[in-house]
């Protein structure tokens, strides 16, 4: 407990059970740390992720042994893939019982070994303090990630006679490289300054690096005048309203961003990891460019795409170095390059069909997100999402101009992430408007957390784009399996309004486009949690899209005839 207070922990997201009762007893009546009781341990882990992403501070989770720990694993794996700082304390059976298939025993350290940045089983009470300290340092420095501390019940109770240190004080065994060597900086500046068609490709690493990195990114872009695109995870690091903003790139990115990536001569990747959703077919990915990659994790560099200049370091620090090295050079005239980009922009790839073919009266989901953005942008809301088409529409049609306002499960793509993440974000930012843009299928994966928001009087909003389908799955079935909609219809849906009311929330249903604005306003104005069930067109597809195994230049756009089947090579890709 004292360790957690020392680490500046305000909230612990958790769920009690036999193997953590000693810690829960310590929490009882302690005013310094607030325990948030979730309804399922998956909710605890995602809430901690949301808190971490929205505040920049580590999220803390406390769960019991066995099922408590296994229920939290999805959230731990999610935090691992999205580089979210998190410390998870799990109870364990007493040391003497470990390995005996004791009641509620699970090999937590074994199960989480490959989805944590590091994990510990603390067998000696004397190691506890140093372990907690190191866990927080590892979770929050370098490339952030989840760290699990598994503590047997007897170790929780024991009062250590002495406290050991893991390593000699002052010398840390984990010391990531932050500053880049000067020669690499000089080489990068040379390449960027001489580029005729440069592009900045930024990612979640800029958010991880702290809000200063976003400021420096804006400054560096201003100096170089280079157009900029971002991954799903990096949205908000650069303002969506800037004329050089190309929108998101990748599978559901904009035509201009993907074309510019394909045709650029110098690519500067800042804190992004060349994910397969971003690169499309690797051998056709930006074939003629010189590539610079700034990343704090050496394993991200040259992992899937070989680069010409890998720079190991922290985004903010390296950007500062680049800005200094750039000095008072004036940006090159990029007129010709920008004119080409303007040509691609003119394709208006996000202009969706006005009406659904099957149901011309239905609200288009893209429209709903656009209106939500227009009516809330003044308040600079925090947006979380679930996973599916609605997530992509949120990324495409909601604008972000500040970091830490966009919470989404990118790497693992975990349905059920959004509501608990919104709860965590709301706790960390009590005065902000927090909205989970959800799908009717995803929201049911952690629907029980409605109760958590009620209990702590959190005014979170859920905006369901209810298309009565696992829309993303339906879309792939249309593209790949000749529209055989195997198990992708959301049958037997609950009445979401009544469900919300049953938990003490306000429920609003929108079926008519004429009510869209008024209902969104009613949602914002209500001082308390609100669930909006926005019934949208069932057949809308999310475009642009780079189909599996295709190149950036082979995007499907609105108006293209889609559907049919694919060969096995393409089908094998995810």
């Amino acid at each position, binding site marked *: 407990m004292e360790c957690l207070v020392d680490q500046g922990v305000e909230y612990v997201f958790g769920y009690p059970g036999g193997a953590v009762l000693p810690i829960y007893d310590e929490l009882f009546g302690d005013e310094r740390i607030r325990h948030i009781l979730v309804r399922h341990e998956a909710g605890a882990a995602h809430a901690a992720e949301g808190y971490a992403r929205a505040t920049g501070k580590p999220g803390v989770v406390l769960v019991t042994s066995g099922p408590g720990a296994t229920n939290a694993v999805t959230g731990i794996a999610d935090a691992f893939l999205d580089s979210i700082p998190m410390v998870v304390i799990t109870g364990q059976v007493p040391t003497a019982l470990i390995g005996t298939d004791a009641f509620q025993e699970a090999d937590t*350290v*074994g199960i989480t*070994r*490959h989805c944590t*940045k*590091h*994990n510990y*089983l603390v067998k000696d009470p004397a190691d506890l303090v140093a372990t907690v300290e190191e866990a927080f340092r*590892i979770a929050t420095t370098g490339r952030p990630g989840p760290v699990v501390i598994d503590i047997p019940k007897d170790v929780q109770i024991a009062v250590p006679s002495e406290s050991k240190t893991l390593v000699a004080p002052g010398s840390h*065994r*984990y010391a990531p490289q932050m500053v880049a060597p000067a020669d690499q900086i000089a080489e990068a500046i040379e390449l960027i300054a001489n580029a005729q068609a440069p592009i900045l490709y930024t990612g979640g690493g800029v958010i991880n690096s702290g809000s200063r990195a976003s400021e420096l990114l804006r400054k560096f872009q201003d100096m170089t005048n280079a157009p900029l695109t971002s991954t799903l995870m990096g949205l908000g690091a650069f303002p969506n309203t800037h004329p050089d903003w190309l929108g998101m790139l990748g599978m559901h990115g904009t035509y201009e961003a993907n074309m510019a990536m394909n045709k650029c001569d110098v690519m500067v990747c800042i804190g992004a990891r060349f994910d397969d959703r971003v690169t499309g077919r690797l051998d056709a990915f930006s074939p003629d460019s010189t590539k610079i990659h700034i990343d704090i*994790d*050496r*394993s991200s*560099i*040259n*992992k899937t795409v*070989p680069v010409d200049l890998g720079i190991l370091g922290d985004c903010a620090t390296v950007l500062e170095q680049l800005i200094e090295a750039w000095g008072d050079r004036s940006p090159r005239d990029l007129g010709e390059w920008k004119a080409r980009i303007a040509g691609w922009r003119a394709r208006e790839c996000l202009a969706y069909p006005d009406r659904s073919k099957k149901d011309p009266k239905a609200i288009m989901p893209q429209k709903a997100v656009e209106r939500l953005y227009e009516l809330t942008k003044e308040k600079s809301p925090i947006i979380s999402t679930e996973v599916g088409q609605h997530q992509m529409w949120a990324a495409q049609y909601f604008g972000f101009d500040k970091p830490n306002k966009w919470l989404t499960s990118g790497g693992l793509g975990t349905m059920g992430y959004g509501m608990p993440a919104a709860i965590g974000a709301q706790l960390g930012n009590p005065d902000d408007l927090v909205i989970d843009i959800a799908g009717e299928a995803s929201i049911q994966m952690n629907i029980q957390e409605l109760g958590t928001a009620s209990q702590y009087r959190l005014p979170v909003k859920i905006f369901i784009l209810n298309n009565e389908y696992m829309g993303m799955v339906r879309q792939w079935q249309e593209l790949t399996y000749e529209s055989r909609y195997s198990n992708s219809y959301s049958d037997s849906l609950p009445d979401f309004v009544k469900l919300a009311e049953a938990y003490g929330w306000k429920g609003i249903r929108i079926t008519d486009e004429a009510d869209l604005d008024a209902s969104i306003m009613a949602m914002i104005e209500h001082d308390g949690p609100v669930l909006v069930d926005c019934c949208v067109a069932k057949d809308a597809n999310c475009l642009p899209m780079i189909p599996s195994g295709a190149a950036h230049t082979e995007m499907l756009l609105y108006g293209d005839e889609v559907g049919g089947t694919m060969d*096995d*090579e393409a089908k*094998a890709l995810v």
Partner: protein
Amino acid sequence: MKIKSAESERHVLAVTVDNEPGILAKITGLFTARGYNIDSLTVADITEDHAVSRITIVTNGPPQVIDQIEAQLERLVPVHKVTDLTAAGPHVERELALIKVAGKGEARVEALRIAELFRAKVIDTTISSFVFELTGPPDKIDSFISLMRELGLVSVGRSGVVGMMRGAEGV
């Protein structure tokens, strides 16, 4: 549908790690989880206080995969240092093998004669068997074993490779 594979190279990696529980599982698990190959792996602690272990891993893969293996190993918190002996330059590799051969008459004499040529030691003998101890680079052991196959080979135990840079420098 075809599954592609690329040209492989053999590399010997020397990895120093904190000698803590679970580290070996972390490393071997990393290889399985990410689909890398392990040809051999040896481990033992090497410092007076038993705090540090040295692990020698023989792996193979295309150059880009070898680079990823090293980067992924370095990412593990308890890993101090990864040295690719194959890439770093001249180094020695040794392996120890125990080889049991059973037979009588001509074959037995021939086994002993070849063992002498290879400087293998006899560390156990009965009227009808020998246990040889042989150290050397892996290919020497390979060829000894293949000769013994003709002469009544019963069982083989190999330690896996331990490697070290030549010269005065560390690692």
